[in-house]
């Protein structure tokens, strides 16, 4: 993160398009992660109901509809 491979100017149009795609991909990955915690019942995690059950209390206390 603190490396020198960074100096893409944010205001530059070409860098702007790349930034947009990177941001879009990031949003997709992070939404999947949130889905895994909040809603998945094994379809994505491929762990059966294990992860779903493991995070049961977290879902309730984060306020997500659970059952």
């Amino acid at each position, binding site marked *: 993160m603190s490396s020198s491979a960074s100096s893409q*100017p944010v205001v*530059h149009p070409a860098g702007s398009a790349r930034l947009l795609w990177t941001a879009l991909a990031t949003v997709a990955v992070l939404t999947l992660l949130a889905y895994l915690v909040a809603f998945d019942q094994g379809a994505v995690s491929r762990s059966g109901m294990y992860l779903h*059950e493991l995070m049961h*209390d*977290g879902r*309730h*206390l*984060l306020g997500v*509809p659970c059952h």
Partner: protein
Amino acid sequence: MPLNTTTTPPFVAVLVRGLLAGLLAGLLAGAFAYVAGEPHVEAAIAIEEAATHAEPAAGAHDHEDALVSRTGQRGGLFLATGLFGAAMGGLLATAYVLLSRRRRGDDDGRSGLLLAGTALLGAVIVPFLKYPANPPAVGDPATINQRTVTYLLMVVLGLVAVWAGSLGYRSVGAQAPTWLRAAAAVGGFLLVTGVSYVVMPSFQEVPADFPATLLWSFRLASLGTQVVLWTGIGLLFAALMHREQRRRAGTALPST
């Protein structure tokens, strides 16, 4: 580098700080939920199991032949809040970068806090007041899909409401008195929130014999967990960005 203000950090640097702030805030929220919420989850599960024993046919979601023990689920709480926090912190960082292109001058640290406040109000408090969190034993398994979809829709509508508020604030014009701009913001926010609350369906699924005090305590603990999460993300992200910006300003202008 004439175009690039050297204090603008690259996307990855911001993202890493958002993920880190989210993970830490998630673990903090987990600690809060463990202390403030777990006793109520425990009590609700005892009620749920008593009900399942009374009429075995209703045992749709039993904790008996559990895949994960109760101890495992209490520990899994931290996994859930940590991962969820990291995801939310990352999303906040992404929004921060996308919005920073419209920002004039350097960030004085307010944008991160404003974004976290937006998320807390729009994605947590507005949905919570319509669809409050439910402990185990509350909620009909037959409607879980409807409740999930309407909950997610409410999150989106809550964010739209905050956006409508900021739109109202800006539409009045900068020369208007502050009270008028604030009133326009509140009006825009309440308009969208009010219409959403009326249009969206309600679910009354609390069993008649479920203790009201337990329901209240659980819901308060649940809301507190989200408040800790988003307050933590906002403050930690702002702090990390402040340090990063000072570091970059220092390397860009070593003379000052």
